[in-house]
């Protein structure tokens, strides 16, 4: 029920209604982007954003730097355990 799938916003469909097209693994679907829009990040700036899609809404932007940091930590653990990547 709380399933969320990462996808990338490829097009703004309606600025007023805050609707965009998101590409999820090659499947394109229209989603509402109200939850990821504010004064510092207007609708037009959302193209290219990676988001978490849940029941037709982009609920949050995925933070690329944080994801990279998590993976870097896991890489360090692998190296400490002597496991080649």
């Amino acid at each position, binding site marked *: 029920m709380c399933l*969320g799938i*990462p996808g990338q916003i490829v097009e703004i469909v309606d600025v007023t209604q805050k609707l965009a097209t998101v590409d999820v693994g090659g499947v394109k679907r229209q989603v509402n982007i109200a939850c990821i829009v504010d004064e510092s990040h207007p609708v037009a700036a959302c193209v290219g954003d990676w988001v978490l899609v*849940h029941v037709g809404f982009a609920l949050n932007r995925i933070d690329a730097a944080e994801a990279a940091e998590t993976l870097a930590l*896991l890489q360090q*653990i692998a190296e400490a355990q002597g496991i080649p990547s």
Partner: protein
Amino acid sequence: MKYVDEFRDPQKAQALLQEIAQLSAQIHVDRQRPLKIMEICGGHTHSIFKYGLEALLPETIELVHGPGCPVCIMPKGRLDDAIALALNPEIIFATFGDVLRVPGSQQSLLQARANGADIRMVYSPLDALSMARDNPDREVVFFAIGFETTAPSTALTVLQAAAEGLPNFSLFCNHVRVIPAMEALLDNPDLQLDGFIGPGHVSMVIGSQPYQVIADRYHKPLVVSGFEPLDILQSIWMVLRQFATGRCEVENQYSRLVQPEGNTVALNAMAQVFEVRDQFEWRGLGYLSQSGLQMRSDYAAFDAEVKFTVPGRSVADHKACQCGEILKGVLKPWQCKVFGTACTPDHPIGSCMVSSEGACAAYYKYGRFSQAGAQFQKTPVPG
């Protein structure tokens, strides 16, 4: 980066499993019983089984499956109310597919549809809103279920309906809150939990800060986790590290999506449309204070419980069904008398066997029919 495959890397999983085994051995030098870590969210439960994670963990770690599946915790009485609404010939009843096959006291929504009710499956509350626009001479009621992950979507849909002045759209609101359920479990003396894997997508909305009560009042470590196998293994490792260093804190493994304060837009939409109910009934947990959401009186025009009459009765579960004990983590699915025999995904007696996120459905789908099956290939602790 696609944010999926990178978090399924087998080498990194192997490294985490080695770390977990070493930490677990260190912790269990002076412990008599397994460390019980509850994953609240049904999405985590299914990931754990899908990737076979529980079989890769040391036998000193027991994963306990929590009540974080809104379909599983839906009490029979509320389902009967939903079916009563759906049977009203004025109404098009829009619902997520997850709940269609859950048995009510007389029938399921799917059986009600076979009996003539106009029940339509949707993937988003916005689809129900489109139905209301397309059918101005009919009432459209959306069956709003889910935790705080789903509630903002419903709230934003109501705000859209209000902005458009749509008179024929309403919600049957059954949204629930995760933290009161966790507190109810922690107050239950039958269940000795040692730590929590926190629900990542609920936390994406409410943030990680609200869990501080779990660390402060109950002294349990909690790690908010993502849903990929590396996320879950890293979260287990983080819980173990807290144990090893004598800490009880709220930590956030899922920082790529979860901020401490949550999502302000989503929280504001929820606060505008919903208020906390005094109490709400949960299957297995009974009536829990402050655990559900209802619509504010400002939005009564969009509240199906105000617009229409529902029976509003509390209905006991089937005598043989032990979903309640399974939802509390007191029993494993294979310990239920009817699991896999009278109760199967094709002929479910209880909701935990229906929902794609239910613990019983997971155990059944992945062949854990007995204690032996559930513990096969458990990793011995390194001597």
